[in-house]
């Protein structure tokens, strides 16, 4: 194997070089910019994590698993998993093998970084070695792998349903250019390498193809144009990459270490959020997942469109999309790259300025009787009074010394205000509640509303106080033998409230409780995949009519279980579901209260 062209250069590499240079500069600039957008602490945290061997190793593993092998996608949809990983990993291997070839055969050219890409153009095969044949075989093999992925991608583009996807994101023009460029890279590479296979050598794909072509194309005049074409589409792809969804390829490599460093989104348009926005591959998995898309509505308000509009800077749409979301967290749960749709939206809401700013600091603290266990029912439970009454009754039956701190009304927990993006106002409420809870001397705070529960867990500072959702607390009481459940002959399906399930990761305790008090069935989509009831306070702008469709879709999912009744653990879910449900909707507390004596 020797250099065929003494200068080691042909003008056709220029398009590739331009594209490559552009994309490298763009990314380098972007990385520096994003690192500057991080707060001083976050930046420190990030750099430390990079040199920490544990996180460094995790970073490498995650990059391989997520970016190249798409492990998560494999688990969710093997066909899509194969499609993505064949292209990503295959291409990666082609690049890697190209470098190995250069190092092995023309090591002096390793400084020309177009060499590994166009290796077959620049070399002439003089002697056949096993090593060369193996590499050539591998090159053809991975090219075939990539091509198979491309074929699948083309099929998916035409019939997405074959891949189990009902709806995909509509690609923009620039994405289409990137897409067609990407699709044509590999067939053109095959063509180019085929035409030069009799000079530079080839394997099982390029060799026979070369022979066939040579039967009726007797000269070498056409191989230069195909190498030009190959280089040009590469150049085009690189040039549109920063402006297309393919930006997710480099961005995800930054996102993974940032996530592993434990960074949080602090601004919807900067730092981590920016990296997440660029990491969105526009795959559209979030569209089918989004409860708002029930009845084919609000599709353009899913996270994939949020990232797109943020990249475009369409402020009107960004605000609309951010305000509409229910913040149910399902898009985040299904997202392959880990875009935190709800958090970006909350932070986006926080950017907005208000001229009326609430302040609760001057509210006199409500007297709370001293007790070991405090119970906080929250605002919404006032509209579903059975919850509070049942929780209190069950606790009394178990002999718990409990004080219902907001029996006659109290302050809101602050989460509705927080999710509206009004952090200062929310924290003003939080501090007021903290003051009251700590003054009571309680060591346990039982919370029945999942919205409040998440707020108490995430945003409150209550040293010495254990915050616990009542389902967990009841479960413990049952285990400790302080509550005795009898089983009714009803069959319940448990609806996971978003804030309790995806929000706080509590899936098992409610099911265990219901299972001990009645028969329990599961619906098609449950746990992390459960469908929001549509009543969420997360959405600021969804109208009642729009919510109706969402609720009905949520109920349809619950009906798949064929259960007699629906159990849930959230006042808002109960009020919302029972509005349209054809079967009773009960809170777990009420079910437990009925089945204990």
């Amino acid at each position, binding site marked *: 194997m020797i250099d065929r062209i003494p200068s080691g250069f042909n003008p056709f590499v220029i398009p590739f070089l331009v594209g490559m240079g552009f994309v490298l500069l763009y990314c380098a600039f972007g990385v520096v910019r994003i690192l500057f957008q991080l707060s001083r602490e976050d930046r420190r945290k990030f750099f430390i994590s990079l040199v920490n061997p544990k996180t460094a190793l995790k970073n490498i593993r995650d990059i391989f698993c997520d970016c190249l092998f798409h492990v998560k996608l494999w688990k969710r949809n093997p066909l899509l998993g194969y499609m993505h990983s064949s292209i990503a990993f295959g291409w990666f291997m082609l690049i890697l093998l190209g470098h190995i070839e250069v190092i092995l055969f023309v090591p002096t050219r390793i400084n020309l970084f177009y060499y590994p890409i166009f290796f077959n153009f620049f070399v002439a095969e003089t002697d056949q070695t096993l090593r060369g044949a193996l590499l050539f075989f591998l090159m053809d093999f991975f090219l075939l792998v990539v091509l198979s992925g491309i074929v699948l991608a083309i099929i998916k583009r035409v019939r997405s349903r074959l891949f189990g996807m009902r709806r995909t994101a509509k690609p923009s023009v620039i994405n289409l250019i990137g897409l067609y460029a990407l699709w044509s890279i590999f067939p053109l590479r095959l063509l180019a390498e085929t035409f030069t296979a009799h000079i530079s050598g080839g394997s099982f794909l390029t060799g026979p193809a070369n022979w066939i072509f040579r039967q009726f194309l007797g000269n070498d005049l056409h191989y230069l144009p195909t190498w030009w074409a190959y280089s040009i589409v590469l150049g085009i792809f690189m040039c549109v990459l920063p402006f297309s969804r393919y930006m997710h390829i480099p961005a995800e490599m930054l996102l993974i270490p940032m996530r592993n460093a434990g960074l949080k989104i602090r601004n919807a348009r900067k730092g981590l959020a920016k990296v997440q926005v660029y990491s969105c591959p526009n795959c559209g998995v979030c569209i089918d997942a989004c409860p708002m898309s029930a009845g084919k509505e609000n599709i353009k308000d899913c996270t994939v469109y949020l990232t797109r509009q943020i990249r475009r800077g369409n402020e009107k749409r960004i605000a609309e999309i951010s305000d509409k979301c229910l913040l149910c967290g399902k898009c985040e749960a299904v997202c392959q790259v880990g875009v935190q749709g709800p958090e970006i939206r909350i932070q986006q809401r926080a950017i907005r300025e208000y001229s009326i700013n609430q302040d609760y600091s001057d509210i006199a603290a409500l007297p709370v009787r001293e007790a070991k266990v405090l119970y906080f029912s929250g605002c919404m439970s006032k509209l579903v009074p059975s919850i509070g009454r049942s929780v209190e009754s069950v606790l009394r039956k178990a002999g718990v010394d409990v004080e219902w701190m907001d029996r006659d009304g109290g302050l809101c927990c602050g989460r509705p205000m927080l999710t509206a993006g009004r952090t200062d106002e929310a924290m003003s409420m939080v501090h007021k509640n903290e003051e009251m809870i700590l003054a009571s001397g309680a060591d346990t705070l039982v919370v029945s509303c999942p919205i409040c529960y998440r707020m108490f867990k995430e945003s409150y500072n209550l040293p010495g106080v254990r915050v616990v959702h009542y389902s967990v607390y009841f479960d413990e009481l049952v285990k400790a033998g302080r509550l005795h459940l009898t089983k009714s002959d009803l069959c319940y399906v448990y609806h996971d409230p978003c804030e309790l399930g995806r929000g706080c990761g509590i899936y098992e305790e409610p099911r265990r409780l219901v299972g001990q008090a009645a028969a329990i069935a599961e619906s098609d989509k449950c746990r992390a995949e459960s469908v929001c009831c549509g009543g969420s306070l997360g959405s*600021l702008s969804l109208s009642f009519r729009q919510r109706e469709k969402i609720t009905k879709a949520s109920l349809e999912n619950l009906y798949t279980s064929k259960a007699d009744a629906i159990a849930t653990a959230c006042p808002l879910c109960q009020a919302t579901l029972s509005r349209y449900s054809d079967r009773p909707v009960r809170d777990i507390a009420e079910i437990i209260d009925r089945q204990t004596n």
Partner: protein
Amino acid sequence: MADFGFKLSKSSTLDLDKVDLKVYNLLCKTDPDIKTCMACGSCSATCTAAPFSGMSMRKVILALQRGQDVRPMLGKCMLCGKCTMVCPRAINTRHLILSICKCYD
């Protein structure tokens, strides 16, 4: 100005020809359901902030419709959303409150 020990007092009359409906008209665009309030008072009755401040969404909407300044009325709203839950006319009062909070200059 001569001091007589008493002064002309400001009229309490709502003069619909003179009141400034700028804010209300703005809100009619962002939150058109504000127009359908029938002043039933459910929102005020259920309001979490009411015991602390006398907050009443019914009064807020009415005051907006009459061109009155509502800024002092919203200072204790907690955005808890109960008013939205109970509204028989399905007015998104929560969004309305945020719109009000933002539309004053």
